[in-house]
């Protein structure tokens, strides 16, 4: 058994690389026929991701990790990959999402034909998927850094696909700088390990020659949090995300938001639970939890104020990363108190949400991409009534919205519920402070959840319901089949993940077991595999999404039946909506801005909104307005108070230093002279 599994894994590794390689290079061979390039590139990507799924599953169930390495003749560098459960799980995520997204892309990139080189686009797309896969599989710090940077670079180029727009260039630049700074911190993390291990191989990181001193462990913790956090988009390092993700072509946004930021989660888990052996003080976990909670809340709050559909989704990525980190943070806290089965639970919740978010966020971005494809605008205020123009897209978007709002029996509900439970189970922690802090985290999670619901009610309601608000929306048409199928696949993944937790939990348990040293699957999955019981020994709580699903499926017809029984056959007449006597115009509809107005007022201490109202009265009477102009903005707090000052100081400094290069030869001679004197004196 083990033997042929390892064979499958080697086969998978080889084929994934080869197929993505084909996808990268072959399209350039057909530079004449853009359509053919499209097929080759994304076909190769789909094939590769199927192999990737196989690889991931095989890796999950392989009895022991499989490593494969190619020596390089550069010092300290080995191209080594390792397929262990953790890596396989993330490879699975990448490949599942990659499959559906590639399917979608086949239709979507038609929009770019004869505007862009489809070959370049497709090649970069494959390179992106490949680099992400390698980041996950890399088993050598140096190799990891190389593919990590390549991943960032490739994604940068995908972001600036439409680089004739200045805002796109800005977004790309901002992204590139942020991710590069983040990489610097990751380098520091690895250097800390290197000093004790004497090599960059992860194996050496796991078992260093001498144990790391406490200070250096903390340094590694902090550097990893900042480094990977930048990529993951935790507050306050999230600022680049709402710019970069929307700027990219939608199928790429789906991958960036759904998958790429997960590589950062992978990095964190790898460093904390694997390299640092899962032994750390409680406050590490608390910091992660706190950052997660803040990210979740602020993420959703800023999302509510967004009316650019893709930026809204990007902010929701910040929120969901926060939720994931809350799970992981809770797990870390439990781990530091030695409650390993709860630690496993927290980690499991986090990872479950990771795969869920990959799917529904991917789905939502694909939906946004479809609306963009159909209407050529990202502004929700110009949508409306799309549900009649593009029913399929609307339906799939609705599935995604329900899932991300964690409404039962969706997959988002399962993972958020598990997170809730792992937070509530804090009463087993000996320390009172933590006992209180975790429920507070749960409170913030609850608030986040409901705000997310409000946000997606807005997103779906304003975009797809009521009357078209612009010519764009009126002329919209349903998107090509390739795109619909792509969304359908994503939606299917969401539903399965929601209704079959008893299948998913044991899978993730295979990941957490080696990290926490305890397996909890058979304890959690009870009631003949129908219910999840996080803490069976406590009998704390349980859910069963299949039963809930069944219940709803039974009760909806029941309601129908009741109505028929009491009221008889349905007699229905249609008439246009009552508009206070005058007939209704789209301009009279509630806008997204109006919808979120109360929330903006309630949380104004966070939004710091600025409102500008200009009224122009009629000459005849100053009681009747001729024109009114209303403008409202929310303050970008983090840019204003965190990033702009840094930039300003740097440029000011640089400007001041111009005098150094003032052009005077005597000055230059003096530099040399003084350096000489100083060094001579130093020698003496």
């Amino acid at each position, binding site marked *: 058994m083990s033997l042929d599994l390892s064979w499958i894994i080697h086969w998978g590794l080889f084929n994934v690389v080869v197929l993505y390689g084909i996808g990268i290079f072959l399209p350039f061979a057909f530079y004449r026929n853009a359509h053919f390039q499209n097929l080759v590139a994304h076909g190769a990507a789909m094939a590769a991701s199927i192999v990737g799924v196989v690889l991931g599953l095989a890796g999950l169930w392989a009895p022991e990790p499989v490593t494969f390495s190619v020596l390089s003749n550069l010092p300290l560098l080995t191209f080594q990959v390792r397929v262990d459960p953790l890596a396989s799980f993330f490879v699975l995520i990448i490949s599942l999402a990659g499959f559906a997204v590639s399917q979608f892309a086949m239709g979507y990139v038609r929009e770019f034909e004869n505007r862009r080189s489809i070959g370049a686009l497709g090649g970069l797309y494959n390179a992106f998927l490949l680099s992400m896969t390698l980041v996950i599989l890399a088993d050598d710090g140096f190799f990891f850094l190389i593919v990590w940077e390549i991943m960032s670079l490739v994604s940068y180029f995908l972001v600036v696909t439409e680089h004739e727009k200045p805002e796109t260039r800005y977004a790309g630049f901002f992204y590139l700088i942020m991710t590069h700074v983040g990489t610097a911190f990751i380098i520091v993390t690895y250097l800390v390990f290197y000093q004790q291990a004497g090599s960059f191989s992860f194996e050496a990181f796991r078992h260093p020659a001498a144990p790391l001193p406490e200070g250096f462990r903390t340094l590694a913790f902090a550097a990893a949090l900042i480094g990977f956090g930048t990529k993951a988009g935790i507050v306050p390092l999230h600022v680049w995300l709402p710019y970069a993700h929307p700027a990219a072509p939608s199928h790429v946004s789906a991958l960036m938001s759904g998958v790429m930021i997960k590589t950062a989660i992978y990095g964190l888990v790898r460093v904390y639970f694997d390299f640092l052996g899962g032994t750390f003080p409680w406050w590490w976990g608390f910091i992660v939890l706190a950052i997660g909670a803040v990210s979740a809340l602020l993420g959703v709050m800023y999302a509510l104020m967004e009316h650019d559909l893709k930026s809204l989704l990007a902010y929701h990525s910040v929120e969901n990363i926060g939720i994931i980190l809350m799970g992981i943070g809770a797990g870390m806290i439990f781990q530091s108190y030695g409650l390993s089965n709860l630690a496993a639970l927290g980690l499991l919740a986090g990872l479950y949400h990771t795969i869920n978010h990959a799917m529904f966020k991917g789905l939502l971005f694909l939906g946004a991409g479809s609306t963009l494809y159909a209407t050529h605008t990202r502004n929700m205020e110009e949508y409306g009534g799309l549900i009649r123009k593009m029913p399929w897209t609307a339906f799939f978007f609705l599935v995604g919205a329900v899932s991300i709002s964690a409404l039962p029996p969706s997959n988002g509900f399962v993972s958020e519920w598990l997170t809730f439970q792992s937070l509530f189970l804090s009463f087993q922690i000996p320390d009172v402070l933590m006992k209180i802090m975790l429920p507070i985290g749960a409170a913030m999670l609850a608030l986040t959840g409901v705000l997310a619901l409000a946000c997606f009610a807005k997103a779906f309601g304003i975009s797809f319901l009521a009357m078209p608000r612009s010519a764009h929306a009126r002329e919209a048409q349903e998107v090509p089949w390739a795109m619909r199928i792509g969304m359908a696949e994503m939606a299917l993944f969401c539903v399965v993940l929601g209704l079959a937790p008893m299948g998913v939990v044991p899978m993730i348990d295979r990941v957490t077991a080696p990290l926490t040293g305890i397996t909890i699957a058979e304890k959690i999955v009870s009631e003949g595999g129908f219910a999840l019981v996080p803490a069976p020994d406590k009998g704390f709580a349980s859910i069963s999404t299949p039963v809930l699903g069944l219940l709803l499926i039974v009760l909806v017809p029941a309601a129908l039946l009741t109505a028929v029984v009491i009221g008889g056959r349905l007699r229905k007449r249609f008439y246009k909506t009552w508009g206070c006597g005058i007939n209704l115009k789209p301009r009279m509809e509630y806008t997204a801005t109006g919808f979120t107005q109360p929330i903006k007022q309630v949380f104004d201490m966070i939004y710091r909104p600025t409102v500008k109202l200009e009224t122009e009265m009629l000459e005849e009477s100053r009681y009747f307005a001729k024109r009114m102009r209303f403008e409202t903005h929310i303050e970008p707090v983090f840019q204003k108070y965190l990033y702009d000052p840094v930039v300003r100081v740097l440029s000011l400094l640089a400007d001041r230093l111009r005098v*150094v290069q*003032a*052009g005077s*030869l*005597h000055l230059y*001679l003096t530099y040399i*002279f003084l350096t000489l004197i100083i060094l001579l004196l130093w*020698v003496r």
Partner: protein
Amino acid sequence: MVIHPDIGSQLVNFCSALLLLTCFAIIAQRRLSACVDLFALQSVFLAVTAALVAFLTGAHHIYIAAALTVVIKAMILPRILKAVIERLNVTRELVLNINIPSSLLVCGALVILAFYITQPIISLGFLLTKDSLAIALAIVLIGFFTMIARKKAVTQVIGFLVIENGLFLGATAAAYGMPLIVELGVFFDVLVAGLIIGIYTHRLQDTFDSVDTTKLTALKE
């Protein structure tokens, strides 16, 4: 005939001291042509020193070096410089970056510095030319300082040549001369350098109507 080493070293040191004095003179002098003459004089002293060393040590190739010094540094280069000065009709440095008294003070300090720095490795030196290394370093530094303190291209060239003299003194007096081929190469380079600088000063004059190098500040941030 044989001269007692002490006396020999006395002589060498005396000559090198003269070299140093001429440096001070150059610093103190405003008139360009006078500066050039002083430089020529310094070169002569240098040649004498070299010849002395050659005579006292019997390292005969140094004679050639001495001869070259006289020919190139005491005759050819001063001629070129004089010609330049004639052509540009700049006779004197009116404005200085650093005025003369303070320049002299600085140079004094530099001499002390030079002795202070070389002090630990003097012991290596031969009895004959104990202090020459320090003096050579002093001359180099003073030449360097001249280039900073003066504005006109010509004076800067002179400063550069003074540095060269310091180097030569260091090479011959302190280390009994480099192998001949090296010396020749060095001289060749100095010559070419002088020529190129000459060309440049001409072009500067043609383009900017001035050799005041402080005016060259078009290129900056």
